[in-house]
């Protein structure tokens, strides 16, 4: 069951990501990104991180991507034009991307114990409420980074307001 979930939603995530790149219209691309995020949420859930899954759906698919779609609709952005692409991108891009992919998968596969890997669906059958664990981690052990991040976001919001305000 867990393996089936992983295969279906992993494939869906990859398909969505590819569709995101190949679609010409920004709305279609944004919607493919939503599909990717929803499939990731299902994968989180199948690993037992149900709160993370819900947060992923609410924050990324429900708020951030809605804003993306909203802006695309407001600006009425048309289809992008295809260019032939630069030679440098072909020469350096594909090998570079492949190298990064190999490096990352090597690191993840060799260091999976140190990174805290769990077997697929290990927690799905006896899912514990991990909200309290996350909150202990966030609000006690990592309190300072958490608060600093929120101040950073607040500063960013204020900056956006200042930039967007019309000069009187």
């Amino acid at each position, binding site marked *: 069951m867990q393996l089936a979930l992983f295969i279906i939603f992993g494939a869906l995530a990859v398909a969505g990501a590819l569709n995101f790149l190949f679609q010409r219209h920004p709305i279609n691309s944004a*919607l493919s990104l939503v599909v990717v995020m*929803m499939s990731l949420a299902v994968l989180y859930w199948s690993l037992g991180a149900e709160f993370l899954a*819900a947060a992923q*759906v*609410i924050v990324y698919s429900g708020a951030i991507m*809605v804003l993306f*779609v*909203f802006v695309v609709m407001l600006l009425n952005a048309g289809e992008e034009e295809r260019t032939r692409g630069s030679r440098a991108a072909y020469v350096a891009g594909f090998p570079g991307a492949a190298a990064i992919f190999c490096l990352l998968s090597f690191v993840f596969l060799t260091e999976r114990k140190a990174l805290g890997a769990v077997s697929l669906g290990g927690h799905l059958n006896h899912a514990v409420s991990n909200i309290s664990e996350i909150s202990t981690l966030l609000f006690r052990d990592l309190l300072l980074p958490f608060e600093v991040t929120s101040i950073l976001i607040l500063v960013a919001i204020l900056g956006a307001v200042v930039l967007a305000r019309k000069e009187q």
Partner: protein
Amino acid sequence: MSHLTEFQTFLLLSILKVVVVVVITLTAVAYTVLLERKVLGRIQNRWGPSRVGPFGLLQPLADGIKLFLKEELLPLAAEKPLFIIAPIIALSCSLISIAVVPFGQVQHVTANGISVDIFNIADLDIGLLVILGITSIGVYGIALSGWSSNNKFALLGSLRATSQMISYELALGLSLVGVVLRAQSLSLRAIVNSQSAHGLLSWNVFGGLQFVAFFIYLMAAYAETNRAPFDLPEAESELIAGYHTEYSSMKFAMFFMAEYANMITVACVATLLFFGGPSSPFGNLFPAIGGPIIAAILPIFWFVVKVFAFLLLYIWVRGTLPRFRYDQLMSFGWKFLLPLAMANIVFTSLVLALHAK
């Protein structure tokens, strides 16, 4: 049944529950429409539908047949795939969130070694978050419908709807924090149990001192479901019909059903969070009557009565209040409801912290 594995039994029982709940919800949607037309009619001093069947009770059936048989129009300039997907997203999102709602007290039925709670499709630890998440996905249905139909009224309607839903989602989510703090859980069953001690007195809206949160939730929920007095997305005097202007036949019906299914979901959530869900308003005042079957059905009766009361309130508000202006709507949401919700969180956590000492 013995030749089925445990997983197959579980799957079959779950599918059975889903089918029953979806059928009941859709029937409830159809009759909520009739109820609205009847009650609005009486408010406006006219009869409402009264010709089809006794008291017009078969009117939803006639409407359904009419919508099925109508011609399906597809505008030439519409973005075809999105135009078709949009109503599907809207309706499915509004139906999915019913899945986590517990309709009655826990009632396990054991079949083939699997025990299943028959009055709840899925009892999740984060049921409340699931409802919020699915509601936030439902925005796409409306946003895409307006954009893909390539019509300026539809686009304006969907822009209004989207910004309104994003803005009020915040106040809605924050208003629920007080309830979650009191129950110390996001599971809907736990929230119901946290207020079932003394019947009416321990409901969150009275004994839980969450009256302000309930007020915020109600306002935000009306805006989320695009209902009067916040029905600007489909303000018929300025936008024709808003985001579903270009839709016809069953696609239009799907939007229509989605709106009413959302109303029912919101009423269910309000019942669960603030009015004790399926628990009786009298608590343990009266001794239990009847056998186990009555004991199982009575909570469902209370649940349905409370949801029905909320639906009536919806209709009553629609018949009474005029529509807001758009800037009033936005400033009401951001400058009044949001700070009030935050103040409510601070107040509730202060009281809880003082109590804990």
